[in-house]
């Protein structure tokens, strides 16, 4: 697959120190921290709203999330079944009844694309969650503990980074057999190395900050340091990285499905394209069967990428300064 456009420069956490003091001074440190984070989030959102690219991405994404959630209301799931009475003539160009035409089994391409949204988005999000958990854990342990743990983990990460992504995913998916869960697992398990590296770099710079050293001198445990001081500050970075990885995961899903490694029972956008290619649609000029699912992929991936770059612009102080 393509390289993940992760920023190589570590993001700094939104500076929380110089914000206007809240009207009523909070009492516990927890409340202070919460108030500061809330203010920081507000400030990021204010900045984000000014970013045209980011807002455009957010609107497109919102549209697709809507379609994914309300798929049953937009198109009857019966339309996915070739024996369903709502299917029409085979390979019909777009008409009023079938706005995007029909496939070789008479199913409405619009219905297929609407339901494909669910599968493609689910695979993208869940596999990204796996990637982030593995990548963050490895990056945190390597960066925080250093020494032999770092050597072993980072060497391992470098090894996995070298393995070409798609061939590895293909091999794994072939070995495990085509299924919905295989695709999620394969994408999740193959795309963590880049994340681990980014997180580690950030942790390395965070752990030498004075406030972390102060907390350590006061006798804070490793667990406290990691969960209370390191993790919250890697948070923005993890967030921006996640958004970009979802884009890559959705692209990977479409490629794996196109190669016939997707779940034949769960129609994703990649599966629709595989079916159309298998039936010779591009060669027979059945453009209505080829264009919609691909366009859906482009739009969703584009929206995630735009949101990711916008977040990077806002959260990365190095980019802002330029």
């Amino acid at each position: 697959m393509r390289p993940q456009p992760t920023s190589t420069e570590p993001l700094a956490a939104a500076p929380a120190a110089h914000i206007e003091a809240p009207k009523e001074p909070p009492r516990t440190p927890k409340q202070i921290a919460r108030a500061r984070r809330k203010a920081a989030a507000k400030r990021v959102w204010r900045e984000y709203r000014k970013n045209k690219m980011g807002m455009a991405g957010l609107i497109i994404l919102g549209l697709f999330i809507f379609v994914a959630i309300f798929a049953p209301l937009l198109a009857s799931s019966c339309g996915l079944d070739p024996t369903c009475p709502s299917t029409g003539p085979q390979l019909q160009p777009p008409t009023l009844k079938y706005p995007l035409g029909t496939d070789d089994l008479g199913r409405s391409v619009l219905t297929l694309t609407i339901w494909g949204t669910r599968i493609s988005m689910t695979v993208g999000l869940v596999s990204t969650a796996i990637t982030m958990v593995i990548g963050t854990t490895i990056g945190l342990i390597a960066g925080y503990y250093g020494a032999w743990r770092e050597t072993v983990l980072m060497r391992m990460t470098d090894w996995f980074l070298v393995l070409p992504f798609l061939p590895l995913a293909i091999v794994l998916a072939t070995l495990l057999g085509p299924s919905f869960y295989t695709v999620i697992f394969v994408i999740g398990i193959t795309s963590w190395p880049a994340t681990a590296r980014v997180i580690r770099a950030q942790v390395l710079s965070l752990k030498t900050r004075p406030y972390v050293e102060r907390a350590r001198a006061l006798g804070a445990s490793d667990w406290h340091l990691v969960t209370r001081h390191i993790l919250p500050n890697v948070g923005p970075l993890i967030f921006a990285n996640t958004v970009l990885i979802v884009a890559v995961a959705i692209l990977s899903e479409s490629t794996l499905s196109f190669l016939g490694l997707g779940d034949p029972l769960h129609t994703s956008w990649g599966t629709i394209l595989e079916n159309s290619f298998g039936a010779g649609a591009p060669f027979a000029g059945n453009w209505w069967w080829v264009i919609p699912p691909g366009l859906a992929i482009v739009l969703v991936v584009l929206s995630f990428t735009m949101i990711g770059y916008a977040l990077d612009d806002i959260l990365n102080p190095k980019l802002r300064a330029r």
Partner: protein
Amino acid sequence: MSTRRYLISKVLQALLTLVFVLAFNFFLFRGVGDPVTQLLRGHAGITRQSVEQLQRQLGLDLPLPQQFVHYVKETLEGHLGYSYFYNLPVSQVIAGRIWPTVLLIGLSTLASTALGIWIGIRQGWRRGSRYDQGMLGFTLFTYSMPEFWFGLLVIMAFAVGVGPFPALFPTGGYESTGAGYTGFAHVVDVVNHMMLPFFVLTLSYLGQYSLIMRSSLLETLGEDFIVTARAKGVRENRVLYGHAVPNALLPTMTVTILELGFVLSGVITIELIFNWPGLGLLTATAVDARDFPVLQGLFLLFSGSVIVANLVADLLYSYLDPRVRAG
């Protein structure tokens, strides 16, 4: 660190990675199941004796570590196993497919790097201009597009024809079958077949190179020596091509080499849809036929070439930028 120690450590690291890939490849495919059962699939008259004989032949009666040593030895000698599907040694199957892929990847990478660098320079030099904005949009779009879908669109537009427009290029393949072209006519024929996959691959990866060149140039333009050059009255054109571009080219060049792994991935689907008889198409057919020995061999070849590319990038970088060696 001295140069020599730097080089040696890089080469050793690459070798270590290669060993990892070998081990990974070995154990991964052991997870599929017993190779003997797979080999004998569909054969009649299998006796216990023949099974045991085959096990001995393949070295499967040995303990696992010994099997691994055996596998490494065989691999180093170029024996990659036997394809179920083609009934040929895997090395022979792969060797027959290397040339078309090298041709396609090589030419399209050359084209997309050269174009990408040129576009990136113009973008970085006029940052924020309409050209820059437009190209950024284009880059984001090509990045978000699955290569194979773009390929299908191109097939519909140029190989099948839209409405009154005729088909301009063949839909796929490496050459016209049965035409028996030789010499120059053959070259023209192959070029004609390669046009569309070449176009798709070039355009798909163009954006990544221009993006890297752009940000690398922007970074260089902010350096002190650029300010110095301008202060001493160097002409703008010379500031760009004499001072900024040569320095900005470094990261772009190494990244180009490192991209190989991703280009390899893209080539799998592109070769499939254009029926280009290279390693990518071989991968796709091996997936369909569940031809594990071929997949194993291909995976080794792909990872191996990425490792070598990484090493070349490292060495090249240290040669071109002495600061790396010193650090």
